[in-house]
């Protein structure tokens, strides 16, 4: 297969645009948000002198713009994202402690959402037009229209508070006595279940519709008729034969969900106080912790772009016609 230089080039351009926006936005927008950090009359004044010094050095606003940009790129290349005002620590360190939780949440949600969407799609497509199919279509379309922050709050109220099945917020029980690794693992899984479920429901509809359509496309096939003539059970025909053939489009669709999941994670993590990058972005906005906010922006948006690139490359591998 030909190396996809054009594809890589256009993604590199998008990353360059993102990195430049991250540099340019705080300097271009009215109100000089960064300058007010060292203005004692402003409400966002940073009282701590060493942090203020760090900020002035990092943004370097008294230099010409080109020099600021060159220095910003240099810092970025060495992983220096400035100093967080609230945490008095390098932004890269603060982010490092949070990325793992977001990865765990998004990965779990992707696996769960893909599985639910595929199973429901197989079921629905197999019984196309029947009452069960129509009910599932209506249910998934309704789910698709609920804003993620509202769905998260409904789930928190019903499943965590009313029924008490899951903890309401956080990723671990605070100050828990350490009673073995297994116990700690179960605790993490217990906290993860609800946010991951809500996040999964954000993209399950698309997966479901694709799987359903793909399943419907298999229904009239000769191999199913032959299988039925041989006396194979409905179950074997449905899962071993039709579903297996209907899987390819659904697999490629799964990768398209990563950007959506990362974006919805900002809301879901915020509602459940889940300590990932999305919640960190929400906190940084509230604290006017600009360097931290910019760090979260870079991490989240570059993750989305990287996921898109991965999906594109995977798609070429699975369906070589698209590479031509």
């Amino acid at each position, binding site marked *: 297969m030909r190396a996809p230089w054009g594809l890589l080039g256009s993604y590199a351009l998008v990353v360059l645009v993102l990195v430049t926006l991250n540099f340019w936005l705080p300097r271009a927008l009215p109100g000089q948000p960064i300058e007010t950090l060292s203005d004692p009359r402003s409400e966002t004044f940073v009282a701590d002198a060493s942090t203020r010094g760090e900020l002035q050095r990092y943004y370097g606003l008294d230099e010409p713009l080109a020099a600021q940009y060159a220095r910003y790129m240099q810092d970025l290349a060495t992983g220096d994202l400035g100093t967080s005002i609230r945490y008095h620590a390098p932004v890269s360190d603060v982010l490092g402690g949070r990325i793992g939780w977001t990865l765990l949440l998004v990965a779990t949600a992707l696996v769960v959402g893909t599985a639910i969407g595929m199973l429901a799609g197989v079921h629905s497509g197999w019984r196309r037009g029947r009452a069960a199919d129509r009910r599932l279509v209506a249910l998934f379309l309704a789910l698709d229209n609920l804003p993620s*922050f509202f769905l998260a709050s409904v789930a928190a109220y019903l499943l965590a508070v009313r029924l008490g099945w899951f903890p309401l917020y956080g990723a671990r029980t605070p100050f828990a006595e350490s009673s073995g690794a297994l116990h700690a693992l179960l605790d993490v899984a217990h906290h993860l279940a609800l946010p991951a479920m809500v996040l999964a429901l954000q993209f399950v509809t698309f997966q479901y519709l694709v799987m359903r359509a793909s399943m419907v496309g298999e229904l009239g096939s000769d191999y199913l008729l032959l299988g039925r003539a041989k006396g194979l059970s409905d179950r074997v025909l449905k899962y071993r034969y039709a579903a297996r053939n209907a899987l390819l489009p659904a697999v490629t669709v799964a990768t398209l969900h990563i950007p959506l999941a990362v974006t919805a994670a*900002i809301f879901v993590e915020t*509602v459940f106080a889940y300590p990932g990058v999305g919640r960190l972005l929400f906190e940084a906005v509230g604290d006017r912790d600009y360097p931290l906010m910019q760090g979260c922006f870079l991490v989240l948006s570059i993750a989305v772009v990287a996921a*898109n690139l991965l999906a594109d490359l995977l798609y070429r591998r699975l369906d070589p016609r698209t590479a031509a």
Partner: protein
Amino acid sequence: MSARRPTVLWIGAGIVGCFVLVAALAPLLAPHDPRAISGASFQPPSARHPLGTNDSGQDILSQLIWGARSSLIVAASAAGLAVGFGALVGAAAGSARGVVDVVTMRVIDVALAVPALPLLIVIVAFAGPSRATVIVVIALAGWPAIARIVRSQTLSLARRGYVHAARGFGARAPYVIRRHLLPAVGPLVAASFVYWAATAVTLQAGLAFLGLSDPTEVSWGAVLNRALEHQSVYLTSQWTWWVLPPGLAITLAAVGLAFVGFGLEPRSNPRWERT
């Protein structure tokens, strides 16, 4: 499917019509000034306060009624801006062709690849969360997709006989755009407008939910933001009258607009043919 489309359109129009009515009559319908302290804080629903009061004693129902106004104004302005700019760019790129078209499409591709929500959050945080900023920022997220649709429509229209004839008689590009292209892409633009308004309702509420709204503005997202700041909202029945109603209002408004958009979508739209 085509038999059901008018039904969907009318249901959607009914929902949106109700919200427009509530928004227009807000001063008459709201029992209290939404910003005034009209009772004790955390009051459960009563005759005086049908949905109770919030942490500072403001009437929640009145906030929801005035919130409809805020939501619809932001949705209409953001969608109008996004569709207007998007249609203009799309029509210009499609009829200019050549280098202009290539460069514009490149810009649109990059804009579509940039994840919207984190960028919106950062822009609003730096620029300050005034209503105007929120409108512009939501429009900013919407125009590339609309420009792309309009461009492809323009390209296919430009090959039609009557456009060739107009050009043959010496018509310039602005005339062709105004006289032939804009009327032809009109239905598509109308559907895009309503769809983007639905997205704008959710986006505005989402930004306000994250705390990115004008502190003086009464909106559904801001009610949610305020309510969920109190972890105690889950532990009492407060949740059912402080969180559930604004959440349902946002959902219902977005669904109503999406229904109208679906009902208005012209048959030529490939999106519809797939469904």
